[in-house]
């Protein structure tokens, strides 16, 4: 795996979480924050279980479950036979019977064998039973590209899940959000598809994980499910983004600032539920918007965002809402992915095309 060349996301979570602290703060990676969130959730609730492929002794291929088996035992964090539908279906039964399973799909494209269980049961069971059976399952998926991965290791599969009523779909972009959103996902009574941008696993922020834990356990972390956040304030146009594309959008906004344009960046965090309010408030204010996402653009989450913004903010718009997305092609091989991924230049081009009067 090659380290991301993107600028790491820098502390763009809710400022409200930041408890003033006189001592210098330690740093953590996105991956370590996820690991801490899992450990803290397992510590605070015996019903929380973690299972999947290679998540036990190895600690997961990305080490997100590192140390959990040693700390909580083989009954709480364990390897399953190699079968994704089996993992998902067993999680359904365990959730029916009092557990809160967190499952890891090893990679985005290897979650597909579990798709029938996700669509036909995880998403529908609560509705089918008129809420009698809730399924507090978290499906963790190392997700999307930008890591020089070979085929089947870089898919942006969010639209499949977002299109399925009943699934909460989250994609954190910062270290703080990784921690808080995973804790919130595990605590949610609803099934959550938790998309972990692989290229951000090694990104760092100045955060103290113990402090994040105190903040969350103390009920001081503002809700993130269904709440987008303004990651960078601006006045001239809004970039709407989530997960792996947020750092790219922020880099584009920084570059635009040098050219004298003030660009606001929205980090959705939560694809479903979607925060129409925060998005529309921003676009009505700036009058211009570009949606940035890595997935192929056709029939995508980006398409949905454009449609929603256009329906709700039409009279505030000075230009059509544009999209910078992946092309409508299978995810390219490592030497070609840079031509595919939304880049700072492509975003700046789109911003330039927003029918500026000057």
């Amino acid at each position, binding site marked *: 795996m090659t380290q991301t060349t993107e600028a790491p996301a820098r502390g763009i979570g809710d400022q409200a979480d930041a408890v003033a602290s006189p001592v210098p703060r330690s740093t953590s990676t996105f991956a370590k924050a996820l690991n801490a969130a899992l450990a803290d959730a397992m510590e605070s609730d015996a019903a929380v*279980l973690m299972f999947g492929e290679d998540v*036990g002794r190895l600690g997961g291929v990305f080490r997100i479950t590192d140390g959990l088996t040693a700390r909580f035992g*083989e*009954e709480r964090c*364990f*390897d*399953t*036979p190699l*079968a994704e*539908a*089996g993992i*998902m*279906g*067993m*999680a*359904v*039964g*365990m*959730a*029916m*019977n*009092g*557990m809160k*399973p967190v499952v890891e799909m090893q990679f985005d494209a290897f979650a597909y*064998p579990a798709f*029938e*269980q996700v669509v*036909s*049961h995880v998403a*529908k*069971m*609560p*509705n*089918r*039973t*008129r*809420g*009698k*059976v*809730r399924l507090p399952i978290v499906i963790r998926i190392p997700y999307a590209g930008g890591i020089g991965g070979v085929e089947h290791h870089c898919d942006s599969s969010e639209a499949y899940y977002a299109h399925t*009523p*009943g699934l*909460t779909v989250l994609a954190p972009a910062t270290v703080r959000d990784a921690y808080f959103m995973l804790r919130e996902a595990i605590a*949610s*009574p*609803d099934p959550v598809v938790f998309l972990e941008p692989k290229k951000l696993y090694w990104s760092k922020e100045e955060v103290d994980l113990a402090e994040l834990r105190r903040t969350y356990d103390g009920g001081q972390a503002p809700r993130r499910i*269904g709440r987008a956040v303004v990651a960078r304030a601006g006045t001239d146009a809004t970039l709407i983004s989530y997960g792996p594309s947020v750092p790219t959008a922020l880099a584009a906004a920084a570059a635009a600032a040098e050219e004298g344009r003030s660009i606001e960046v929205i980090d959705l965090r939560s694809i*479903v*539920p*979607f925060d*129409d*309010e925060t998005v529309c408030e921003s676009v009505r204010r700036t009058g211009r918007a570009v949606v940035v996402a890595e997935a192929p653009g056709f029939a995508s989450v980006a398409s949905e965002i454009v449609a*929603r913004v256009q*329906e*709700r*903010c*039409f*009279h*505030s718009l000075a230009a059509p809402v544009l999209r910078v997305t992946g092309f409508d092609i299978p995810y390219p091989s490592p030497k070609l992915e840079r031509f595919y991924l939304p880049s700072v230049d492509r975003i700046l081009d789109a911003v330039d095309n927003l029918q500026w009067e000057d």
Partner: protein
Amino acid sequence: MSTATNEGRGSMIGAAAGNAAQPTADHALLPSAQPVQLIDPEGHHTHDDRYPLPDGQKLLSVYGRLVAGRRINDQANALVRQGRMAVYPSSHGQEACQVAAAVVLDDQDWLFPTYRDTVAVITRGVDPLEVLTLLRGDWHGGYDPYEHRVATQATPLATQLLHAVGVAHAAKLRGEPTVVLAMCGDGATSEGDFHEALNFAAVFHVPVVFLIQNNEFAISVPLKSQTVAPSLAHKAIGYGMPGERVDGNDLAALLSVLGSAVDRARDGGGPSLIEAHTYRMQAHTNADDATRYRSADDVERWVPKDPILRMRTYLRGLNLLTDDGERALAVEADAIAAAIRNGLNTEVDVNPGELFEYVFSEKTSQLREQAEQLREELARGTDAEHGAPIDGATNQTKGDRP
């Protein structure tokens, strides 16, 4: 815990007595050469070394459930013909499997049924009208799975087998003595989830009894097009669990074989696979035309093997079942049928507002908007006949008005 022990795997489902040669562990996992039978189609007891015949009083009490089961199938078919239900996958001819699957379980146990297992669900104690909600068409499920520990009737084939494994796994982790009985058809054994469920159950050594009702057809496709395995029960050895085959029209054999598998699971012996040989006497559902793929003669051959007839002959032969007793059972069955008939002849009020209620534990802002849209449409008046708003508007989002 996550690594299964080999403990208990060497024993057969029944007692291992009667086998002269020292069986290897492999042999012990194989099903018997012929399906286990305790009462033959003529109503005579046939001895089996491993499986005891349940006592007469027990058989008599369960026989009443068989009679009721047949009556429920007949009544449900009639209600479909009358347009009161959308469809009914009948278990006519399979009632012994249906009843046995329900009565071998204790209250703390779980049953995982399919669309065809309505009689099993009712036998377990679920209100028939709640069960038939699905097929009447007013909601996708009508009963609370926790009330009688009966999962929703699964339609996507074999998917429920994995849920059964999960329920059993959770119970095992908490040290509860719960056993889970999971049902599927012969066709469903070709699905990937069947394989994954059996393998997970075996690896995690969880208390699940898998019951396949081999009724020889998956809609139109005969079993020989699904598999060339010696039997479906033989598949068990590939997972390292015992397999057994049983005459699926012999209530006594089913009670004995399933009962011993349930006991074994409860005692920590792990999962097992039981194949019940039976026959789907009616079409797949009322919407199916079975004459396109099988002859009347094929079906006719199974008439003398009827599970109810067989048990009746046996019980009458022992004078356990009398004319008075039969009349009383018929009255009971009629009462169940009448309750179903009356219930389904009463129109239920469906509540369109409920459509948005259970998608998430809390409505999203999008669902609140859509619920409000539908509420407004209904307040304005709709073309009830077509279910569409009179003005033809559909799913319109509130546009941005200047």
